[in-house]
């Protein structure tokens, strides 16, 4: 362990703060684009544009992973985030009937408190991180640290049990999402055979929780109409 740290410090001596390499310049430019897109994502008033700027942010992060020689993570990022999560978010925006144009109530009233908290934590984190890793350099030469072969070998040699546990978690999330969306639909549309069979099969706790929500929603039935009028 100690000779590697010795070579690390000697490698740090050969680098300079004011002579960035090409990889660092590219990382900085892509990072600026990513951070700008993230800022637009959290500040824009058009909800669909927020989802589309989120695509730019996640794609920029995939490029950053490629620059850090973690190619498998980069392609997983493109597949999962850009491919499915953003599509899910867009579907959610459409299904909740989000307004297409500018919505004036996208930000809540405590945005100045949120801005204060975010800026304070950003200043603290950046200061701590820069102060801690001022003389630390990543050696990007040699074979890639995150190629598919390396990642697969480490994943299936050392991380098999968490991998399988994660697949169980994914299955549970899948079933949970289906149950969450299906029960509400059976509750609102048709209280016929379908919901009766479901209440027979499901435990009583979510059942007793779900009925009053439906009653509450029917008692507040004028609210969506008001909202549509406001929009």
């Amino acid at each position, binding site marked *: 362990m100690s000779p590697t740290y010795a070579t690390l410090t000697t490698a740090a001596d050969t680098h300079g703060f004011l002579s960035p390499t090409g990889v660092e310049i590219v990382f900085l430019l892509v990072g600026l684009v990513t951070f700008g897109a993230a800022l637009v994502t959290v500040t824009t008033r058009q909800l669909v544009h927020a989802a589309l700027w989120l695509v730019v942010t996640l794609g920029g992060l995939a490029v950053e992973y490629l620059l850090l020689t973690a190619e498998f993570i980069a392609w997983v990022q493109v597949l999962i985030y850009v491919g499915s999560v953003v599509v899910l*978010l867009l579907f*959610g925006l459409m299904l909740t009937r989000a307004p297409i144009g500018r919505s004036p109530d996208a930000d809540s009233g405590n945005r100045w408190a949120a801005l204060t908290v975010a800026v304070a934590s950003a200043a603290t984190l950046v200061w701590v991180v820069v102060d801690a890793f001022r003389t630390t350099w990543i050696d990007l030469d040699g074979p890639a640290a*995150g190629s598919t072969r390396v*990642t697969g070998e480490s994943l299936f040699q050392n991380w098999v049990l968490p991998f399988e546990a994660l697949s169980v978690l994914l299955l549970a999330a899948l079933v949970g999402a289906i149950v*969450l969306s299906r029960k509400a639909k059976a509750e609102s549309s048709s209280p016929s055979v379908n919901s009766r069979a479901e209440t027979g099969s499901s435990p009583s706790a979510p059942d007793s929780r779900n009925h*009053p929500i439906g009653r509450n929603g029917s008692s507040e039935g004028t609210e969506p109409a008001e909202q549509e009028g406001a929009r």
Partner: protein
Amino acid sequence: MHLAYPAVLSALLFCTGLYGVLARRNAILVLMSVELMLNAVNLNLVAFDVWLSRAAEETLHSGQALTLFTITIAAAEIGIGLAIVLAVHRNRGTSDIDKLRDTAEGHETDGPDHDAPTAGQAEKAEATA
């Protein structure tokens, strides 16, 4: 590459997501900000894994394995979160977090809905997930 570049970028992205979680009103925009925070953590994990895989001879690549796990958990979280948001929207006609304050103390102006706090709790659990 200087390790401060990815670390600073991930700190900035995390704080951007923090601002979004605190300041946004629509539940789906809050979910987007949560995704931003999770991605900042992923960038940190990958950067430190690449650094440590050069510093040590034997490495488990735990950073990259944890990144894959985080991506998977984020996908599960977004599925469950959107299902909850859609259920709340179907029951209440809004996905506005500020209007789901049935559990707030001293705010019993909504009438005789004693059972509405379950929806509010589900919404808040989703917002903090």
